[in-house]
């Protein structure tokens, strides 16, 4: 088909590039994956007359969903307030503010739910001050997972059939949405979720986490555990190492969650040489230039990216998962089914 000039940046940048990284390993490499759900959510809200020019959008996020909203709101002329916490990085905050977003930082964590809880509280407050607002609610809005059909579209056009889908889980939107759409065509596809230690998503107790963008302190409605065949937990150390390897081996300059997904996908591709593996790389590396890509920062924070961890430790129960890398055969079970299995201490 004939290529056309794009009329908006969000249109131009919403789809990933599909890269073949190995014989049976493919990557869907995004500039900003969250453009897909942010756009789908705002478009549906506009279709239902929930928003129009000049509307106020209020969301809590310290990640890329905020940047995606900032881009779309700048394009459409919506006001945007983003409630964030001290973990929000300067590059992200700078870009959002330059796009006209009001970024509110909460300073103290809440007793339950940590900073995420505190952000929610502050957001509720702002929402009552702006009764006409719209809340995209990426964690619970079903339009988040429903936004991922165009990803499946480009993947099947480029490679046809595939067997494994590997991606990180934060809201669950990208993995649940992509798996569900892809399985309407290829029901056999195995979904592999990548989480981090100290995230409640797949049953670990909540803890402070060094690896951001994946994992969660609260359980989002958009996470449907029963789509997953395998779950992996990776540490910041392991993910950072893989992020740098991705860059050094392929010049693929991506964020830390991309590194985490790549690490797991690379291992799965090696274990299953006759199966096609697709991993999702959600964002670019610029945000991480001062951290993951800085040897000095890594050193100061006690990380070393010299040695890639080659394989995970298998566990039967989420409580048994220990750094740097653990794997559990989830087998499309619910979280309570998985937690009900007797923990075997090793």
């Amino acid at each position, binding site marked *: 088909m004939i290529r056309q000039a794009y009329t908006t940046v969000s249109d131009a940048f919403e789809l990933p590039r599909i890269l073949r990284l190995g014989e049976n390993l493919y990557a869907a490499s995004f500039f900003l994956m969250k453009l897909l759900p942010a756009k789908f959510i705002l478009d549906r809200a506009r279709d239902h007359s929930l928003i129009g020019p000049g509307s106020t959008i209020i969301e809590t996020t310290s990640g890329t969903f905020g940047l995606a909203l900032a881009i779309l709101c700048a394009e459409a002329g919506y006001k945007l307030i983003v409630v964030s916490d001290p973990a929000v990085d300067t590059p992200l905050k700078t870009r959002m503010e330059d796009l006209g977003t009001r970024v509110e930082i909460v300073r103290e964590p809440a007793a339950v739910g940590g900073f995420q809880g505190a952000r929610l509280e502050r957001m509720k407050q702002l929402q009552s001050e702006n009764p006409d607002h719209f809340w995209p609610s990426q964690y619970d809005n079903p339009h988040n997972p429903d936004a991922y*059909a165009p990803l499946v*579209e480009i993947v*099947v056009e480029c490679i046809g059939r595939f067997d494994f889908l590997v991606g990180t889980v934060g809201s669950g939107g990208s993995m649940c949405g992509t798996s569900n759409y892809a399985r309407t065509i290829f029901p056999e596809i195995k979904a592999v979720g990548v989480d981090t230690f100290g995230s409640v998503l797949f049953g670990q107790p909540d803890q402070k986490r060094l690896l951001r963008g994946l994992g969660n302190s609260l359980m989002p409605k958009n996470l449907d555990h029963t789509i997953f065949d395998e779950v992996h937990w990776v540490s910041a150390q392991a993910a950072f190492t893989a992020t740098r390897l991705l860059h050094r081996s392929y010049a693929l300059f991506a964020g830390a969650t991309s590194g985490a997904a790549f690490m797991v996908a690379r291992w799965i591709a090696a274990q299953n040489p006759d199966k096609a593996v697709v991993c999702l790389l959600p964002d670019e590396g610029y945000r991480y230039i001062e951290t993951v890509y800085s040897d000095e920062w890594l050193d100061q924070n006690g990380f070393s990216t010299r040695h890639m961890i080659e394989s995970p430790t298998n566990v039967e129960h989420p409580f048994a998962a220990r750094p740097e890398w653990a794997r559990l055969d989830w087998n499309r079970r619910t979280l309570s089914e998985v937690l009900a299995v007797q923990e075997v201490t090793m």
Partner: protein
Amino acid sequence: MTSPIATPNTTAVGLADSTWLTIKKPDLRDWKAVGHGVCSAHHGEILQGMFEVNGKLHRALISVPFGHLISEARFECDENLKTVVVEPRNCVKAQAAAELTLRKCGRKHGGYLTLSSNVPARIGLGSSTADVVATIEATADRCGVDLSTEEVAEFAVAAEIASDGSMFGNRAVLFAQRDGFVLEYFGGQYPHLYIVGFNTDPNGWGVDTLAFPPATYTVKEIKSFQMLRALMRRAIEDRSAALLGRVASCSARINNDHLKKKHFEELERLVEAVGAVGIQVAHSGPIAGIIFDPATAELGERVFETNARVAELYGTQTWCFEVGGRRRGLSK
């Protein structure tokens, strides 16, 4: 070198040593007493749904070519008639198509249209479109106008409101059946397919295409159609019967929620059980087909098994045909 002087009614023919000869083109306007047209049926669809183009939604489909059944049309002008007299008399869509084509060709008179067809009506094989397309071609042929396939498609939709993509023969296109234009040419050829067809409602009355309202698809279904369109591109590029079978099966499943086929779930299980690659259905009739990759081992046994199961489910016989690839009887 001197160039030939070409007047609108002459054609220049180059001979070996660049001597030129000009010949007079025959006046096509009245060179034939009778115009001829022919169009084959189709066997339902591989993909049928709603697709977005530049923010606008269009209903569109990819038909399964089915060259075994055809409609043929003969058209004669009659300066004394204002309208077209059609035989058989009930072919009113074809009559409208002939009149429309005459006007498009600048003719104010009518004529005689004779159709002969072996395409059964109302079961989703595109009998009406086959008649209409053959008619348009015959009428244009009589008028000495060489229509492009795209023009035939446009006239067909203008004459019968909704047309199948039969005019494109065995070229894979995504045809907007109510807008009369092609959304996408898939290039390449169909992969080689072996299809076992049957009627899922052999004792029923069939369907009048325009009598029931077109399906209203959900946003998610429209997104799925877009994915299937993308997979179709890959299926054609790789000449993959397996991928094409997936496109057809998914489209059939979505559409089954809007127009139910009898025992559809059993058919889906049948596909698995006999090692077929997919199932395709007609959107406007009870026709369905089980798609095989002809390269599958023991194809004969699998087809035999399919026949037996179809007979059990519907109490009816099947027919087999091939699409794309290098067909039997075609020499290398």
